[in-house]
């Protein structure tokens, strides 16, 4: 049972929330929608759920026109980024709610709810009030409520974004286990996120969304290795990929008075307005490197993010250790230039180290 959408557009105000979005989701697969905030992820999920009606375009599920089916008959499940539960019901009643709505036998409900509680690790909490649970537990309850329905389409709208770092890591791990346990046998799982790392870890089919438009579709690895445009490269990297305006001639990449020998996959690109893309992790500190000035140094967890500047060029370097720098310090860095990407002036990918569009 496939979920197919054709040219979905939704424009409630001056801006497109969805702009000609098409996709073909197959059962048993995990799809990740990657995009920045306000890129239309939630709109897309709500459209699939039936909470929003697109201005134009069509959705088919199992060969039937899905737009004609009201929300309450669609058999979808959705987990919101806010922890949405029914505050007047306790944990058990919350999870049982969709089943009671279907008038299922009481004993079967009990069994299913207990199963769901077990799979999200909340056994023993069934009589608690929702308000007595922590954020992570509340999100588990809403996950359990969406699991218990056995819905054909499971929508997860940035389910981890409002959790603190540790819980996020933990719950993400559990999600992965749940998804791989074969829960998704005939379910279409759609997961939206702003976090590239989450996308890579879930390792499903990725749809990169920006300003309501689909920029690229492909497996997570493919998006990471061969982003088809500057924008995708920005969205799918955190911190965003460094973009350096450079010129390549005589086998040398030249910018800000620096000459770097061009690797083979870049050497033939001699056009004007070329942009070189380099991940912040592909730049390292090196005594014999090129001198840059520190604009800002942030320490996050166990890594240091250095914002560097030389002339008009600004780059971000991430270093896997905690280092203390002062503003205006001089540092010397080296580029792992054979990991560099090149983009045309119009933003399209020109060459990638992983072989996309070489030459």
């Amino acid at each position, binding site marked *: 049972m496939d979920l197919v959408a054709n040219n979905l557009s939704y424009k409630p105000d001056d801006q497109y929330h969805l702009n000609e979005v098409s996709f073909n989701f197959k059962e048993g697969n995990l799809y990740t929608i990657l995009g920045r905030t306000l890129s239309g992820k939630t709109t897309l999920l709500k459209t699939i759920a039936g909470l929003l009606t697109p201005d134009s375009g069509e959705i088919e599920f199992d060969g039937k026109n899905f737009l004609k089916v009201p*929300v309450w008959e669609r058999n979808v499940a959705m987990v919101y980024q806010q922890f*949405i539960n029914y505050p007047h019901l306790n944990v058990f009643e919350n999870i049982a709610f969709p089943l009671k*709505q279907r008038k299922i036998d009481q004993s079967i409900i009990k069994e299913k709810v207990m199963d769901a509680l077990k799979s999200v690790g909340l056994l023993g909490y069934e009589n608690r009030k929702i308000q007595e649970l922590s954020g992570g537990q509340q999100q588990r309850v809403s996950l359990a409520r969406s699991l218990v329905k056995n819905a054909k389409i499971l929508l997860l709208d940035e389910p981890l974004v409002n959790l603190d770092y540790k819980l996020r890591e933990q719950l993400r791990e559990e999600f992965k286990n749940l998804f791989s346990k074969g829960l998704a046998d005939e379910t279409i799982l759609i997961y939206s996120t702003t976090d590239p790392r989450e996308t890579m870890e879930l390792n499903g089919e990725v749809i990169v969304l920006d300003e309501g438009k689909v920029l690229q579709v492909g497996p997570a690895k493919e998006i990471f290795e061969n982003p088809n445009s500057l924008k995708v490269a920005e969205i799918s990297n955190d911190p965003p990929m460094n973009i350096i305006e450079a010129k390549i001639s005589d086998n040398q990449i030249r910018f800000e008075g620096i000459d770097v020998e061009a690797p083979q996959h870049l050497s033939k690109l001699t056009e004007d307005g070329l942009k070189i893309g380099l991940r912040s992790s592909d730049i390292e500190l090196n005594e014999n490197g090129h001198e840059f000035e520190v604009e800002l140094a942030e320490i996050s967890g166990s890594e240091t993010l250095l914002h560097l500047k030389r002339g008009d060029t600004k780059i971000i370097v991430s270093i896997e250790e905690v280092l203390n720098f002062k503003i205006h310090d001089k540092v010397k860095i080296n580029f792992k230039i054979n990991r560099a990407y090149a983009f045309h002036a119009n933003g399209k990918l020109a060459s990638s180290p992983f072989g996309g569009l070489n030459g």
Partner: protein
Amino acid sequence: MNKLYIFLKYFFIVVWTVFVVAPFLWALTTSFKDFQSVNGGVTYIPWVDFEPNLEGWKVLIKSPAKGGVDIIEPYFNSLFVTCTASLISIILGTLSAYALSRYTFKAGFVKNNDITFFFISQRIMPPIVLSIPFFLFLSSINLLDSLTGLIVVYIVLLMPIAVWIMVDFFNKVPREIDETALIDGCNPYQAFLKVVLPNSIPGLIVAGMFCIIFGWIDFFFAFILTFTEVQLLPVKIVALNSSVTPWWSLSASALVSVAPLIIVAFIVERYLSKGNLSGAIK
């Protein structure tokens, strides 16, 4: 510091309690006094300062023929009119508030907020402005001097309060809760009844209390729109006043007229202290 804090705390509690309770005690003792004890200087304690009697209370239930005012019928009229009007106002007001909070209305330049304001604006107008239209309206449909007419007018007056409070309340209930209910298989009516309403009980109680209070204490419209057939309590109490002010029966009637409000307040307080209202919606 700590002792001073405790002292000040109890000091203010005592002052406030005296402030609140004293008028009730005063009315209670006065209701058992006679002409002599009221006008013959200040008296406080029954059986010591004055000899209590039930004359003030008896006037309230004696028929006019025997020199009483008989507030029993007006009392039940008032109860009936207030409760019916409040109930209908809450039901209609909650439904319209939910619609105003969740759906978008547009008629030319009139949008949701304008409609909400339109409801509230009914209460901004001085009552005197409304009295003549109401009078003409009720007389044209032959409902002057009737309970039904009063209920109609009170619904017009009370529903804006319900709408106003409930719109604000529904706006604070996350839309995602309704959406989740829809996704979980409720149609819009079930989503409202099974999910939104149970989470709105605190708002309903507040709106209900305001409706009951405003309905119960209204004198103006009850006075203008009724004559002889139907009378409400506030109007009847005023009728007690004559050339000699009967402080004892006025006090007694004041006590019986606040009684329902005190009972309502106690019930709500019980409910509040059980913690049923707190944290329903975060």
